[in-house]
């Protein structure tokens, strides 16, 4: 019987929910009457969250000269939106790190995701985009739908992986043939269920087809290009060993010279180690 991405998300096996404190903080961001102080107060209610947050902002990834001791100071230094994106990133990785599957190496899965996030952040910074952590989170979570599929439809996921690995098929096309949808659609549905911003939903839904993104083509394009770069330079990181096809329009939208890629990769390699201990460690 055919299943839709929404049914997969709301199906029998429960998927983790975002921590309540994250949901409340996200709601406050969209509330014009709330302030950074209100958001800081909500986050401070969760001591584990506060500790994680301070670990992030004090990590070498940011390299601030003096130690940041409080959430309100972190908000001042990093900004509310970027800070919430980082909280979201660590929360989701923490929630899904315990999801078992025997189909792929979780270590490689998260390393590919993290490298994509780091590259997306650097591409966004070079394209002079504000709120670069939003691009980081979108890159980090772009394949999250795959974990749902591995968990809920392991046999069909295995067939898709086999077709991609041994029959030379593009993974998302193999998924569509076998399941009627792909990991991008499932990931987007999960983002919707968690009531995350539409820009994140679109970035994940269209990370293989960024020209179809109607409202946030730039975020989708950055994540798409980051995924292609990460899959190309880091062998075996993604679910399939082959890099996905590049949408040339996505690269054009970034308006970056190809000569910039070499320096970007050097920086990505440097940041990857710091990001690993910050997000995965």
């Amino acid at each position, binding site marked *: 019987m055919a299943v839709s991405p929404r049914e997969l998300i709301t199906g029998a096996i429960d998927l983790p929910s975002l921590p309540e404190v994250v949901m409340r903080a996200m709601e406050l961001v969209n509330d014009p009457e709330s302030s950074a102080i209100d958001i800081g107060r909500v986050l401070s209610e969760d001591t584990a969250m506060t500790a994680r947050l301070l670990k992030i902002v004090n990590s070498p990834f940011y390299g601030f000269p003096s130690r940041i001791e409080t959430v309100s100071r972190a908000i001042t230094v990093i900004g509310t939106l970027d800070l919430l994106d980082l909280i979201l990133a660590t929360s989701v990785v923490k929630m899904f790190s315990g999801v078992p599957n*025997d*189909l*792929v*190496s979780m*270590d*490689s899965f998260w*390393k*590919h995701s993290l490298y994509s996030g780091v590259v997306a952040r650097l591409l966004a910074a070079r394209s002079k985009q504000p709120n670069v952590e939003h691009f980081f989170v979108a890159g980090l979570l772009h394949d999250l739908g795959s974990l749902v599929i591995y968990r809920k439809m392991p046999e069909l996921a*295995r*067939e898709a*992986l*086999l077709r991609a*690995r*041994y029959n*030379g098929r*593009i993974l998302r096309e193999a998924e569509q043939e076998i399941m009627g949808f792909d990991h991008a659609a499932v990931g987007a549905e999960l983002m919707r269920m968690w009531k995350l911003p539409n820009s994140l939903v679109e970035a994940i839904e269209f990370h293989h087809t960024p020209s179809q993104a109607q409202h946030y083509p730039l975020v989708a394009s950055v994540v798409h*290009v980051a995924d*292609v*770069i990460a*899959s*190309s*330079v*880091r*062998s*075996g*990181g993604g679910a399939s*060993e*082959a*890099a*996905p*096809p*590049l949408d*040339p329009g996505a*690269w054009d939208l970034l308006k970056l010279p*190809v*000569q910039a*890629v*070499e320096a970007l*990769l050097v920086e990505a390699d440097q940041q990857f180690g710091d990001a690993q201990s910050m997000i995965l460690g």
Partner: protein
Amino acid sequence: MSYFTLAWLREGMVVQRTVSDRSGKVLLKAGAILTAQDLTRLEAEDIKGVEVLIADAPPTTLPKQLSAGPQTPEEIEQRLEQRFRHLDKDHPLVKELLRLCRMRETLHTAEPSQHGS
């Protein structure tokens, strides 16, 4: 490790658990790389499936990658060809990525990869 039914087994996959027939005679040892002959034999012995390694790279190339030893330029080209098979190699970004990957792969051959994937 994953259990594959016979229809999904392919040459080059790495056997993870020793396969025996009903009498206990070993047909395939753990670590063996499946050949076309093995597949025919498994079918003849009515073996339903085998536990094999699902790796991040095709099993045919896995032993060499795991060894992290030096690789020849031909082996590097083969790996890159596999990795770039869905990309348009005439696109400027893809051309640049291919150039950088050749450089990185060559360097990593000299020094074992830090990525380990």
